[in-house]
């Protein structure tokens, strides 16, 4: 479903991704771990179509389609969703209004009928419950004045409403308390399906106890330095990233 081939990305004149190759099949959850500054958010942003990233090589296909040629909103309509590491506060734009506009824009782009206010309300009510979000948050402006945890929960709520084909979660677990972590993981697990792929970026093995990944990758120095199953995350937790480096140096050429 997602096919990243030898991706090179430069940011502000600096090479950040240097030949990243990764394939995610529908139904799979891939965890991406890696040291600070390794390029994890860069990868997430490039996939979502943020400006300021210069792709100097490689390609990205989503269901066979050249993803990098699309505008961010076109990618969203094709099913790309990014749960931001730092969700943006947008004063003056009502949360419910925003999300309905987003859902309807996507549906329109796909040639599906738009939802009216009542249909939308019905759709959101159930998802709110799963994520323990009070509808008071929905009446406020997008993320404005939300606590760190509320922002992250709002991201997952949006994901639940938009039902993407490819969900990219950039450190959604950071800043969540233990209960919220479980709630968010539960929200994600509910969405796991044979039709949907996940890229879960995290620093903590704990999240992966709740969202059990099919594959774990280490992103270091702009590449996938190591891949494995969920046991790899445990090894990392025990030994740190230096261990990956040593293994690479020690590995036969």
């Amino acid at each position, binding site marked *: 479903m997602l096919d990243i081939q030898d991706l090179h990305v430069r940011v502000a004149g600096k090479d950040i991704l240097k030949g990243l190759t990764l394939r995610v099949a529908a139904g799979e959850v891939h965890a991406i771990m890696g040291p600070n500054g390794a390029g994890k958010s860069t990868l997430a942003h490039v996939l979502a179509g943020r*400006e300021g990233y210069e792709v100097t090589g490689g390609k990205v296909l989503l269901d066979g389609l050249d993803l990098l040629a699309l505008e*961010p909103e076109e990618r969203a*309509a094709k099913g790309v969703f990014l749960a931001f590491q730092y969700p943006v*506060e*947008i004063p*003056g734009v009502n949360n419910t209004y*925003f*999300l309905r506009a*987003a859902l309807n824009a996507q549906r329109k782009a796909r040639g599906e009928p738009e939802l009216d206010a009542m249909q939308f309300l019905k759709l959101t009510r159930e998802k709110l419950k799963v994520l323990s979000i009070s509808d008071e948050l929905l009446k406020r402006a997008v993320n404005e004045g939300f606590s760190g945890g509320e922002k992250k929960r709002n991201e997952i709520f949006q994901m639940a409403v*938009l039902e993407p084909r490819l969900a990219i979660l950039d450190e959604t677990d950071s800043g969540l308390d233990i209960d919220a972590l479980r709630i968010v993981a539960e929200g994600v697990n509910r969405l796991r399906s044979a039709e949907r792929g996940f890229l879960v970026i995290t620093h903590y093995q704990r999240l992966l106890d709740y969202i059990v990944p099919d594959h774990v990758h280490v992103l270091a120095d702009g590449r996938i330095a190591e891949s494995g199953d969920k046991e790899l995350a445990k090894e990392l937790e025990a030994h740190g990233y230096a261990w990956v480096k040593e293994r690479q140096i020690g590995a036969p050429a």
Partner: protein
Amino acid sequence: MSTLAERLHAALPAAHDGIEAMARQRFLEVGLPRPKTEAWRYSPMRALEKLELAHDFLSANAGAAGLPGVVTLARFAGGGVEQAVIPPGIELGGGLDFDIDADTAPALDPAATDPTNAFLWLNLAGAHATLNLDVRERVVGIHRLVVHHDTLGLAQYRMRVRVQAGASLTLLLHHEGPANATGLLNLLSVIDIDEGGELTLIRVQEVGAAAHLVERSEISVSGGGTLTLAGFELGALWSRHDLLVTLEGAEGRLELAGLVALGERQHHDTRLQITHAAGQAQSETVWKSIAGGRARGVFGGRIEVAAGADGTDARLRTANLLLSPHAEIDARPELVIEADEVQCAHGATVGQIDERALFYLRSRGIPESEARRMLTLAFGGEVLSRIADEALREALAARVAAHLPQG
């Protein structure tokens, strides 16, 4: 070709009394603002100089669609003023008198207010119509006065509003008109709010896109009186509004909010002057401008705290949004304080659409142009939120959205 002053003079209706004849004379003596005239530095006469000022009014025009829940009192149009037909079942608020042929000249004497202002003398020299509104009680509902800009030449109107002690009114001043009205509208309003009176003024300026407008509003608020203003400057090719508000007594309150949205080659200049003439009064102002295309917005917000106006609390904030590299906004807050123990604050920001917010919206599937509109409208949301009536607020939000520049 004759000068602009000569053409304006020639465009006046025949003088019908000594005051008008004198005002004509004064107009010519005072002369139009020159490029160096400080008060008009940002709105030079150049834009008006090419106006031909034909004597015509456009034939009857339906004007802007009505607004929900609003009773129209009167309408200036075609060089006259007419009382609106009040729909059956709707009653004018009790305690509301208005006189559409009032002789308001003595109350509007430029010699007493701003003797060097040529447009004031011009207005006195031959206003087409005047209206006097007297509010004697607490009036329920929203009442509207329409100023229909339909001239190819010069149209001049005056209005005087008095809110008597303890009375209150919500007044919607609605400027509108067809897209082909190219002429100059010169308006003067004098508003007095007596002790403890309350006026909520909603100003919606959406005259046609080719129109020119010079307007002056002088508002005085007596002790314990309140003025709440939500103003929207959306229309006209070239417009200038001098808004002068004076707090004359203790415990007076001003809450002023303005939203200016300009696109293409629009020019708008608001000169707001708030005078705290008496102490223990409060004023809070927020003025926001949005400019796209090659538009130019000017805002001068001056607060003057007179000697002896101790205990004044005055705040003014202006925020500005540029949507295009060719648009320009000059926003200058200014404080002049001659009293003691005052609390005053002012601030100004100029910015662009937040790229992070834009990407966030787009990443959720909202097309770029719509995302920009959402963010632009959100910028003005603070001013729209001042409209208490929900139906009217939503209708005005739609009007504002329709006037928002695309970039």
